[in-house]
């Protein structure tokens, strides 16, 4: 009886405020929580739900007037502000009436203020054999207690009340209250988990009694249930020796963990401890989301950009961002004519703009530093050094921080990004830190950034994150970034997208993707950027218009240039991330041109093409070709000459100018004693300019036909161009009168063979982007030793192919040449092995490049066929169609091939694939 009284006293007299030793996590705003159990099971409230960590608003408690319950004497005003405080007594009343659903009049209350006592009827219990924990501990301070009427409640407080049939709970060593704990061992009622992913929890028992130290004891071997409602278990697990258990929740949503109270250690038939509960917020597992492959959309968008933005130039539209997209997306190789032509336009623009600004230090706009920054970013992406663009150094202006800052946050953010694309250095080494400090100083209290106002904007926040990444080792930067990433996660829309200026839009999602990938976060799977199983990547793709291969700004809009640009380089960033490449603005993977090479005019390079093998038969003919990598029709070239070293045993039958070379005539002479072939091309009568038609390079300038006089099998014939120059006038004293063409690579070795021999070159390998699979490559096989054109079949016991005869390449090289699209995995040496070939004298199937419909005529129907193929209006091309279509010999079939057909038709020029085949060295 004494024990019973003492325990009652625990309840009624000694409930008190203590320091809170454990931290309840994720308490909702202005709520306190109550759990009530009897004999180790949570009791049910009036709604049939377990009273387990049930939330009660402090506002509702404050509204309770104790006078109406005849408890006016128990009002308590701890802070003396004249307003009675909400106390545990208020919580009991509210719980009794609103959660349990019983009348307060059922409760038998005795005692006085500061020593209130509940004899019976509280929460439906018949007796007062209860135990009671407040914030996870038996409430005591220095042995003095405070009764329920004088416990002032604060947000997040939690009460656990456990009733028992047996009073043995008081003395048993296994008594106490069960709780779940976090990884730090602190009590928690909330876990976060991902569906399908194992989640670890920990179960503890709080053992605390008057006069003893509070302790949280790990509960090992304990059964813990989980389910979507307490009491309705979907399964159970047993805790290990450290009290930990692991649960894999099968789906997202709200789940619960709970355990029952336990029997006593000394009183094995009596329940002596409380149950425990925790809410688990199960999100769709990021791991369960397979990161999606966006390459198809990226490739289509890039192809459309390349097709529609035919002449990108300085500017935000159809300019730098398009270049960035195509360069970082890998659509064009670094030295592609598309980029080179853009650079030429940029040089002219920079020279004009920089000269027009009074600062005259490389500034393109006196107050918009982003003009310089945007251009530097694009130039870096194509390997162009910004310190020497035309006549100007675009980095010099960054010495002036006030100029950078004139554009506010945009200025400093893009200055950092631009400078870091190629580790550009400023004389004032504090510039970068000034930019960093400026960005950090503008961070808003919600963790993000905005150009104005106090509410973060996802675009600006993302851009700041992109700029700060290289400085993540600075503690302030990493802390700011952590807040910013949380901010971005918090403001993400329910559909995974982002809004700026109230509109959910494409560009905001794009910038978030770039920021995430920059910081090594997968925006398609990381739970921070996935809402309702919709990622920010999903959201971006909702703006894609498949038919137009473009993006719209907002859902209800139409295709938009800026949206398409930003989406494209965001997809490029994501694709790079997926493929383990550097981030969008980390251009350490770009091979930069040497600065000086860009400002030296007229650096032309000659290319020699010779067959790798010829027959030892006297009287046989073959060709060598000389091509050039660029040409300036405006330069006023008047004459081209070169000297070729012709090996003994060969004579020169003819030297002819290439189809694209115009304005002169060929003259040549082979000096038999020295083997020097001297060739000159000019217009002796009219002194015309020498021009090269078309835009594709290299362009073939000359074909030299050799005749075999006397050579022996096994001979190796060295052919080289000893010197080549282009002259602009006849004044030898004028140092600008002549351009020396680089001929360092114009050497070739020809093997003389007896009988039949094969050699092969690879013309291109598909890259999966436009219609040519990466599993296929085009090879050209030169066959020496046959008298007549015949049919050539390949069989290496695994692969069988029938090669097509190319009269165009054969005529160009003078060697019978066949082409075929083959498995890219076959080693090229296999195509030089005569054992793999069968030759018959039957008429072979042939290939005419550009004859897409194979009707023997090349005209607009073929050009349109290439366009239709690229637009996927026709079935995927067969191997032979690929060979005919890919006239520019890159890795794709697209509108460049269509334009190649137009150019060849109009200019009577040869296709790049023929030029390439005749100029390639053998892979043998």
């Amino acid at each position: 009886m004494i024990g019973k009284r003492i325990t009652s006293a625990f309840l009624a007299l000694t409930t008190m405020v203590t320091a809170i030793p454990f931290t309840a996590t994720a308490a909702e705003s202005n709520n306190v929580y109550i759990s009530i159990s009897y004999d180790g099971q949570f009791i049910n409230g009036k709604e049939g739900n377990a009273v387990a960590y049930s939330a009660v608003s402090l506002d509702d408690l404050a509204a309770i007037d104790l006078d109406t319950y005849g408890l006016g004497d128990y009002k308590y005003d701890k802070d003396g502000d004249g307003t009675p405080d909400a106390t545990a007594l208020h919580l009991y009343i509210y719980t009794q009436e609103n959660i349990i659903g019983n009348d307060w009049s059922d409760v038998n209350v005795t005692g006085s203020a500061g020593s209130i006592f509940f004899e019976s009827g509280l929460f439906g219990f018949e007796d007062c054999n209860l135990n009671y924990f407040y914030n996870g501990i038996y409430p005591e301070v220095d042995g003095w207690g405070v009764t329920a009427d004088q416990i002032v409640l604060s947000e997040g407080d939690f009460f656990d009340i456990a009733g028992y049939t047996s009073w043995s709970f008081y003395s048993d060593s296994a008594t106490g209250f069960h709780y779940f704990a976090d990884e730090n061992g602190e009590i928690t009622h909330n876990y976060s988990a991902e569906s399908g992913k194992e989640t670890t929890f920990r179960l503890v028992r709080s053992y605390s009694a008057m006069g003893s130290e509070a302790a949280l004891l790990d509960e090992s071997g304990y059964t813990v249930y989980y389910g979507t409602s307490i009491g309705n278990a979907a399964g159970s697990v047993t805790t290990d020796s450290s009290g930990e258990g692991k649960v894999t929740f099968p789906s997202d949503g709200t789940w619960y963990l709970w355990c029952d109270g336990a029997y006593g250690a000394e009183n094995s038939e009596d329940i002596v401890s409380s149950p425990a509960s925790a809410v688990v917020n199960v999100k769709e597992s990021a791991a369960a989301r397979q990161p999606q492959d966006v390459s198809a959309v990226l490739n289509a968008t890039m192809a459309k950009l390349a097709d529609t933005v035919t002449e990108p130039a300085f500017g935000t539209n159809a300019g730098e961002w398009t270049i960035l997209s195509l360069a970082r997306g890998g659509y064009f190789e670094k030295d592609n004519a598309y980029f080179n032509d853009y650079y030429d336009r940029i040089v002219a623009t920079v020279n004009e703009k920089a000269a027009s600004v009074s600062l005259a230090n490389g500034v393109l706009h006196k107050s918009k530093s982003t003009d310089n920054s945007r251009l530097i970013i694009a130039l870096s992406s194509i390997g162009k050094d910004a310190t020497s663009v035309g006549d100007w150094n675009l980095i010099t202006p960054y010495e002036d921080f006030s100029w950078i800052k004139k554009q506010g946050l945009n200025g400093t953010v893009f200055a950092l990004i631009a400078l870091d694309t190629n580790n550009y250095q400023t004389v004032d080494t504090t510039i970068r830190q000034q930019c960093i400090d400026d960005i950090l100083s503008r961070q808003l209290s919600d963790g993000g950034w905005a150009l104005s106002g106090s509410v973060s904007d996802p675009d600006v926040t993302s851009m700041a994150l992109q700029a700060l990444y290289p400085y993540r080792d600075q503690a302030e930067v990493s802390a700011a970034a952590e807040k910013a990433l949380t901010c971005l996660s918090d403001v993400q829309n329910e559909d995974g997208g982002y809004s700026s200026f109230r509109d959910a839009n494409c560009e905001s999602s794009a910038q978030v993707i770039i920021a995430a990938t920059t910081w090594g976060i997968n925006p398609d799977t990381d739970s921070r950027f996935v809402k309702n199983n919709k990622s920010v990547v999903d959201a971006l793709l909702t703006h894609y218009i498949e038919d137009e291969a473009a993006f719209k700004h907002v859902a209800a809009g139409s295709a938009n240039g800026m949206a398409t640009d930003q989406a494209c380089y965001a997809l490029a960033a994501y694709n790079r991330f997926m493929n383990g490449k550097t981030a969008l603005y980390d251009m350490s993977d770009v091979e930069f041109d040497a600065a000086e090479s860009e400002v030296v005019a007229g650096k032309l390079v000659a290319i020699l093409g010779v067959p790798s093998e010829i027959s030892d038969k006297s009287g046989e003919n073959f060709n060598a070709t000389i091509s050039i990598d660029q040409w300036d029709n405006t330069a006023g070239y008047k004459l081209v000459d070169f000297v070729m070293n012709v090996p003994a045993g060969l004579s020169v039958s003819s030297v002819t100018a290439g189809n694209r070379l115009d304005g002169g005539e060929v003259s040549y002479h082979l000096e038999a004693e020295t083997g020097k072939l001297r060739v000159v091309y000019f217009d002796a009568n009219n002194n015309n300019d020498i021009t090269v038609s078309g835009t594709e390079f290299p362009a073939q300038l000359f074909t030299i036909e050799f005749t075999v006089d006397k050579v022996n099998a096994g001979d190796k014939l060295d052919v080289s161009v000893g010197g080549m120059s282009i002259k602009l006038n006849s004044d030898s004293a004028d140092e600008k009168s002549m351009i020396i063409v680089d001929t360092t690579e114009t050497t070739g070795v020809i093997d003389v063979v007896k009988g039949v021999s094969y050699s092969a070159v690879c013309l291109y390998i598909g890259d999966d982007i436009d219609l040519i699979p990466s599993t296929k490559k085009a090879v050209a096989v030169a066959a020496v030793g046959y008298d007549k054109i015949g049919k050539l079949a390949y069989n290496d016991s695994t692969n069988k192919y029938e090669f097509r005869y190319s009269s165009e390449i054969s005529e160009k090289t003078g060697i019978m040449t066949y082409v075929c699209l083959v498995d890219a995995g076959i080693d090229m040496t296999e195509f030089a092995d005569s054992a793999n070939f069968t030759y018959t004298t039957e008429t072979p199937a042939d290939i005419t490049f550009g004859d897409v419909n194979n009707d023997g005529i090349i005209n607009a129907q073929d050009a349109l066929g290439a366009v239709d193929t690229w637009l996927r209006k026709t079935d995927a091309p067969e191997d032979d169609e690929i060979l005919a279509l890919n006239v520019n010999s890159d890795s794709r079939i697209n509108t460049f091939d269509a334009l190649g057909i137009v150019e060849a038709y109009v200019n009577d020029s040869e296709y790049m694939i023929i030029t390439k085949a005749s100029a390639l060295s053998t892979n043998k």
Partner: protein
Amino acid sequence: MSEEKKKSKSRKWIIIILGIILLIIILLLFTRCNQSINKIPTLTIETPQKISTDTEEISLDVTISDFGDALYPAASMSIAFDPAYLEFIGLGEGNVFVLNEDENVTKKLPEWGCNPSQCNKSGKINIMYLDTTAGKNAFTKSLLKENDNVVLRLKFRLRGSASTGDVYDLVFEDAVFAASDENESLAIARDTLKVRNSKIVVG
């Protein structure tokens, strides 16, 4: 058989024969009429009046009589000439439009690709138009006028070698207005496009 009966019989035969002849005439007329409805589009290089040796520039219209119902996103023509006597200067604009993507301006003149320098080198005028959207900038019947549809104009100059009495032929070697469905293309090679060549007579 009486004379009256004989006359009656021969009159009957005359009526039958006349009826058959009439039927044949009607059938022929119907066929001709039908042919004119389904006539094959013709591409014509205008043959000019005699050209005097001091004419500075000769401009020849290249006209199309009609199109089919398809869209023609590409077109090309290859016309042989003798560059020893004629210098091809370039192209002049015609009056046949192509569609335009811009909703505000629904048509525009096509931009033909042509390289006069190369043409004079090879003696072949190669001209091509390509709509890389495969339809949004295509030739279409809807933009043809009832007559006088000039696709483009060929501009020449007589070289100093030209002399009175010479006749220089301009001959189509190939021409096509290409549709995505090749069966709908108008092409010399498919006999779905007729051509009329031209002569320049120096007089």
